[in-house]
């Protein structure tokens, strides 16, 4: 069984995603890191589905569908921000504050 290595890989991928979200400034890169985290979770689902049944597979499809929708909306937002601000650097985008 490859459960241990598979979970390790997914943990590493998730940690990379979190780190990327935290340290990077480019919106597109952050977006990619979010996708990375989603896929790390998908890997966990697949790995655990070996033992716990088919529900894990079904969940992966749902996650992929949501991720696709999120990609469409998220990229559209980034595009809109770029048209407005001429940048996708999040440090420069801080108009919305109390």
């Amino acid at each position, binding site marked *: 069984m490859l459960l241990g290595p598979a979970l390790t890989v997914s943990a590493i991928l998730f940690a990379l995603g979190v780190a990327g979200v935290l340290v990077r400034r480019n919106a597109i890169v952050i977006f990619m890191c979010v996708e990375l985290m989603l896929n790390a979770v998908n890997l966990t689902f697949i790995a655990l589905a070996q033992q716990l049944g088919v529900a894990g597979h079904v969940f992966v499809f749902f996650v992929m569908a949501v991720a696709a929708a999120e990609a469409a909306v998220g990229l559209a937002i980034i595009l809109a921000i770029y048209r407005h601000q001429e940048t996708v650097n999040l440090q420069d985008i*801080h108009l919305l504050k*109390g």
Partner: protein
Amino acid sequence: MTGHPTDFLWLVPALPLAGFLVNGTLALARPATKGAVSAVGVGVLAAAFAVAAWIVAGMGHGEAAPEIVRYWTWMPVGALSVDVAFQLDQLSAVMMLVVTGVGALIHLFSVGYMRADAAYARYFAYLNLFVFFMLVLVLGANFPVLFVGWEGVGLCSYLLIGFWFGEKVNADAGKKAFIVNRIGDVGFLAAMLLLWRHLGALDFATVFERAPADLALGGPVVTAITLFLFLGCTGKSAQIPLYTWLPDAMQGPTPVSALIHAATMVTAGVYLVARTNVLFAMAPVSSAVVAGVGALTALFAATIALKQWDIKRVLAYSTVSQLGYMFLGVGTGAYAAGIFHLATHAFFKALLFLGSGSVIHAMHHALHATHTHEDPQDMRNMGGLRRHMPWTFALMWIATLAIAGIPPFAGFFSKDEILAAAFARGQDAPLWYLFWGCGAVAALLTAFYMTRMMLYTFHGPNRTGEKAEPHLHEAPWVMTGPLLVLGLLSLVGGVLNLPALVGGGQWLHHWLAPVTAGAAGFLPEADLEHGTELTLVGIAVAIALVGILAAWRLLKPADLVPARLARPERGLGRLLWRKWYVDELYDAVIVRPLTWVSRNLLWRFLDQGVVDGVGVNGAARLSRGLGWIGSWLQTGEVGLYVVVFVIGVVVVLRAVGS
């Protein structure tokens, strides 16, 4: 009609209620209607009186058990079940006849008196509604139903005192009556709660059946209940200390004063004490308080009446004083005597008020015709009216002799019976000699001030003014007719309860015996020796004669000047004229501190400071402060948000995981 008479008992209050609905609709839809309003307003009262008389005629004489007619269950609350039910017994029969009978006469009088008023339909609507509530009051078979009537007549009293609400003084008088009565009503409510707590019932039959077994004789509970009830009575029946509203209530139309503030509503307190006679008889302290307050009020109000110039105010204080007699009677345990005086007082005081109404009517028209702006109610502007209003003059003298206690007029028998009962009680408790003394002095003053009123109004030269005098004339027949009937009743009303002394059968006394039987067990009426009784009668007649003759000799109507020329009173006269400054005293001791506390403590501190400041605005300020702290976190830096978010997720996961 077939069936048992009590099957139709509901008709008696239903008729005035129907009259109210019809007249109220007319008042809203066609305020100018007069003919239909008079027909309905007077018609329903006459019909109610006819039905009441028919029902009472069907009652068996000496029948002990009251007939209770249940209509529907009103408040089924746990063990307590209050029905809407009427009770027909000897006491409610007397009250029902007085209310509908005198009421019908006063309604008829109003047709003439209010003829020129713009709000004619509204007036009759209120008057019908009043009679409805008064009948609910006297017919109710339990305390809550009685209380509905009690509050209802208070409402109608308020509406009718402030009937001409365009002038602030009238509206204020209505408000005063309503508010002062609320103080008394607190007592009534407290008494009801105590009754329920200690006896578990509120209907008369059960309460009076359980009270002797469940309550200690003369114990604190029954004393508290009766004193609370009596507090309610002092409000409704204008006794010390809550009498101040009644003289102000004279701002209403005069027939209203006759109906509500002399003949019926203000006697509700006397009725209540007579109704709950078992409870009062079980509480000797309360009975003594009732008698004492009554005797004191009788004397106190009579002194004020000595110096009033407004003809209606003289009668108002006279009413307060006569109500005091009634309470002296029922407090002494002479319940039948109290109710007897209630009935005769309804006759002669209604006559006096309606008579003063026709005097004011004539004065108003004379002054109006000559565009003179004088007070049509001030006796100093009257004088010599006997030449212009012979009927009113003669009939009012009958009522005056009746109230002064001259035999054989009605008031003599009832007042004498009360004073005799008080004197008889003095044999065991000397305190009652004092009460008798108060009553006797008040009788002297009554004879004096009533003669004074008659002298200044009807005798001597006329002071209305040369131009106005020819316009003075007798009232139309629709007004003098009711006066005639009331005059007859004042003349012969005494036959209701002729004492054994003059060969009478004490009819009312025996008639009411089943109602007061419960009390007679605890508080048997004391008997007087024949000789003592005769002496007392002699004293009473002598007192009345002395009062009348003293007024006749001492007062000189010829020396009187019209009100606008009169010099202000001085000394004792001023003290009496200003009503012992009681209104001023209440204002300084109660009203002003109360408004001060309301304004500064309740309004400025509690409402504006605590509720508005700390509560409402404080909550707003708190959320604004919290928002300010939150806005501090809102930097617009997405990176920071993400860091906070991740930390939050870790914290939540740790919390969930552990």
